[in-house]
């Protein structure tokens, strides 16, 4: 199930069954998301306007604004749905892993392998993050929460198993791991690294980081 479905279904819950109108609304959303993804990929975040996205989706700008509050919300939903599509694979990687290091490499490996084919979108996401207003920044953080939670759970499992020290600051560690993971994309963008290259460096960095919190 995608992010989009979940959202719409929540709205529909009282009736349990989507009405025709709700279905049409969801189709509209998905058309906009597809057009947005394409344009953000080719033109970057600043280069793609709501007007362009509307026209590529074959609708009015008004129809776009009926589904999304602004460009940032539309963009964040695309990024979130990309992660959402990887969630099963990431969850499985965590479940199958024998320790924290391999759990993290499993879930980040899934992300690297998928995102490496969509680097322009990754660039747009990384470049837009710095200049958000507080409201949008909070919303974007919320959109990534399911994935960030997966990382936290993998680390917490390590603490519960006694692999990591019981006094480990999981929140701090989660932030460090996430940032080191993100920085891998820059090497892909500017140095042409493959997913395997990124993962190899991440593995070395995780080794250092986790060594400091072992039980």
């Amino acid at each position: 199930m995608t992010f989009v479905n979940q959202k719409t279904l929540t709205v529909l819950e009282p009736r349990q069954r989507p009405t025709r109108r709700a279905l049409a609304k969801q189709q509209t959303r998905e058309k906009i998301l597809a057009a947005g993804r394409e344009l953000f990929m080719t033109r970057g975040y600043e280069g793609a306007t709501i007007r362009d996205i509307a026209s590529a989706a074959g609708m009015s700008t008004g129809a776009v604004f009926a589904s999304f509050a602004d460009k940032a919300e539309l963009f964040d939903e695309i990024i979130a749905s990309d992660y959402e599509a990887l969630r099963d694979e990431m969850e499985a990687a965590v479940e199958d892993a024998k320790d924290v290091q391999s759990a993290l490499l499993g879930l980040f490996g899934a992300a690297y392998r998928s995102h490496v084919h969509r680097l322009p979108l990754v660039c747009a996401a990384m470049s837009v993050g710095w200049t958000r207003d507080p409201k949008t920044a909070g919303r974007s953080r919320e959109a990534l929460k399911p994935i960030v939670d997966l990382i936290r759970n993998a680390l917490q499992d390590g603490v519960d198993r006694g692999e990591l020290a019981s006094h480990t600051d999981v929140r701090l560690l989660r932030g460090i791991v996430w940032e080191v993971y993100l920085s891998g994309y820059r090497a892909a963008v500017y140095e042409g690294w493959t997913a395997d290259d990124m993962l190899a460096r991440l593995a070395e960095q995780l080794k250092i980081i986790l060594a400091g919190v072992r039980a």
Partner: protein
Amino acid sequence: MGVREQQKQATRAKVLDAARDLFDSAGYEETTIRAIAERAGVSVGSVFTTFASKAEILGQIMNERIEQLTVELEKVVPHLRGSFVDRLSAFMAIRYDFQMRRPKLYLAYLSVSFHGQRARGFVRMGTSPALRAPLREIIAGAIERGEIRADAEVELLIDAIVSLYGFNYLRVAEGAEVAELTSLMDRELKLLVEGLARR
């Protein structure tokens, strides 16, 4: 220096001053070359004969700021005392303090550092020798004093420190100020260094 060269330098300085103020007040994306020219009191054409793009202007502004910061740091780095993590923390705190004097400007620089394009003379965040060389020195000192493992992978460690330093600025969008960035960085460095401690 010929009259022509002097004029060129004067235009350059005026453009950089105007752009710095506009990027830091109105924002980088919001600022057009036309607005920069207007504020600098020069023609749009002469901006373009000096700089190929807005990103190149931003790159020059940041290079000059980094030079300024390097002068400040050179006075400090040889006098850093205390443990490895204390020295790293002090070094990073000075950088946060300096860059947060013009937060919007630095955030614009981070944004362009990540957006995938290249501009002449633009040194992306984290790749500047002015950032990496002093870190290398601090790490070498710690290895020499036996504080951390002699086989520590120095460049890898610098990459990690630089990533944490840079990504912490994401919190500025939600209102974080220097003190919060510095204290977060301190805690992150402490954890990172634990893993390198000689056992």
